[in-house]
């Protein structure tokens, strides 16, 4: 779906996200609900940045790896060198973005299924490095433990659930604002044009390679940012946190919401993170449920849940249209 480019929509949408995020602590301060809400916001930054890359036609199966790179980078800088979290928040994201430049430059030489496979291979390499190599550094299979919570900032402590939630909310709203603005700018217009017909875009003066690399690096920066938060929120890192399973969930969340619109991942992430919590009892079987939901979405709402109202409206109009046609045919001699 081509997004409508009215000026009011982006402001209203991000405003709604900000309002909902600000309202939650007024409703409940229960630590479990705050935990879930923090996870939603963290996932939101991941799915929105993943979708930014999808908008140019790249399904980057290594997106979660850049989250991992940000997470491990920050965790090591804080625990080994005593750098402040407030510095590593940016350094971690920048490390992820910097590594994304050469990796993207190689992966983006190909497209479609080959790109998918190259990024998938890369994500496995990253996971194996975290798991099997430099055990003294990354902690190996038992993980990297003892990561502290963010240190104080301007006299504010960040050791409670509420403060961490507030921090994540600020980050998520900032990310949402930036990505929504991009989507509704000529940058977003060009990105989706590349996905629809890359050769045409190229011959109309769009440097397709550079545009794709820009979204790859920008998306990785955001993933790195989410990773840094994740490290100091969970305080322990395992290589499997950035493996295939969370990556598949990331794809599922995004696709169920709908990749055609910047709002798709928002809808998908909120609904599916809550669903994941409700299905927690099922342990590893929850992925079966997600798989079923994904198949149903693909069959009945291929443009995702966010496009559902439009799809239903079109179907109704079609139904009504065929009915009038049938009546007309009946009147014909």
């Amino acid at each position, binding site marked *: 779906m081509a997004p409508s480019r009215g000026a009011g929509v982006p402001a209203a949408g991000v405003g709604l996200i900000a309002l909902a995020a600000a309202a939650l602590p007024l409703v409940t301060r229960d630590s479990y609900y705050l935990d879930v809400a923090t996870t939603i916001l963290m996932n939101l930054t991941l799915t929105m940045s993943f979708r930014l890359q999808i908008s140019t036609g790249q399904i980057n199966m290594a997106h979660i790896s850049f989250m991992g790179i940000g997470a491990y980078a920050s965790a090591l800088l804080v625990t080994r060198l005593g750098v402040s979290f407030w510095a590593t928040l940016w350094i971690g994201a920048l490390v992820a973005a910097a590594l994304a430049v050469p990796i993207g430059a190689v992966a983006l030489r190909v497209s479609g299924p080959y790109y998918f496979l190259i990024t998938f291979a890369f994500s496995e390499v990253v996971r194996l490095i975290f798991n099997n190599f430099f055990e003294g550094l990354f902690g190996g299979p038992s993980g990297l433990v003892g990561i502290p919570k963010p240190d104080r900032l301007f006299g504010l402590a960040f050791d409670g659930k509420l403060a961490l939630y507030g921090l994540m909310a600020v980050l998520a709203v900032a990310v949402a604002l930036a990505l929504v603005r991009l989507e509704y700018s000529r*940058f977003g217009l060009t990105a989706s044009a590349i996905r*629809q017909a890359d050769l045409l875009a190229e011959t109309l003066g769009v440097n397709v390679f550079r545009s794709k690399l820009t979204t790859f690096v920008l998306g990785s920066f955001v993933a790195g940012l989410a990773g840094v938060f994740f490290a100091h929120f969970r305080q322990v890192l395992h290589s499997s946190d950035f493996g295939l399973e969370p990556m598949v969930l990331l794809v599922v969340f995004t696709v169920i919401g709908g990749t055609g619109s910047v709002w798709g991942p928002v809808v998908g992430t909120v609904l599916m993170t809550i669903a994941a919590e409700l299905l927690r009892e099922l342990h590893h079987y929850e992925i079966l449920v997600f798989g079923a939901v994904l198949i149903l979405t693909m069959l009945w709402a291929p443009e995702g849940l966010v496009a559902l109202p439009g799809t239903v409206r079109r179907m109704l109009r079609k139904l009504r249209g065929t009915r009038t046609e049938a009546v007309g045919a009946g009147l014909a001699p």
Partner: protein
Amino acid sequence: MLLELSGVSRRFGGLLAVADLSMTVAPGAIHGLIGPNGAGKSTVFNLITGVIPLTAGRIHFKGERISGLRPSEICRRGIARTFQATTLFREYTVLQNVLVAAHLATTPGLGPALFWSRRYRQREQRARDRGRALLDALGLTTVAGQVAGKLPHRDQKALALVMALATGAELVILDEPMAGLAEQEKAETTRVLRRLREQGVTILLVEHDMKAVMGVCDTVTVLDHGLRIAEGTPREIQTNPAVIEAYLGAEEPGA
């Protein structure tokens, strides 16, 4: 000369699709490129616009070498094209299609797109105005809000032309602009091409409709099996024995 091909060749495996082709396109001309099927016409277009690399030779535009550049860079230098199988951003509206093309005139930066500065908004407005003016000129204003993929064939062709023009190109390369059009629509396209020439746009086109080619072109180049076999005014081409020979068995050019 606006465009200059010197010794251009392109090999696909064992097939020499374009063989040592040299030709020039004069500024302000409507230049036709014709030849039987498989003569290498579309390959020449792909070579000029950088879509496929040259095997040998070089191409100059306004005196600067463009062979070896990315298609996007060649477009920035002032050459835009349409495709034989009309290609559009099918999910976008007509206006959005034109905007993608019109944006070229004003470079998109990540920063401006993020911060929506006043200058950025002014540029956006200019791109929008320019796009609307072009749509108006080609009678597409009434469908500006419609999704491009669902337009009738004639409108899709017109839109592809508008997009090429919206880049601000000085040379527009059209791959079969008349294909699939009704007689009346062809006459309309001919008028549009003439009007563009008056406005100083140079046009290079491949076309199978001989009547249209002979009626609109100032110069015609004839290709056969990747070789240039003739070049001249439509009148010269129609009486050229080599051209008649190449088309023999099919139809006489100009018939």
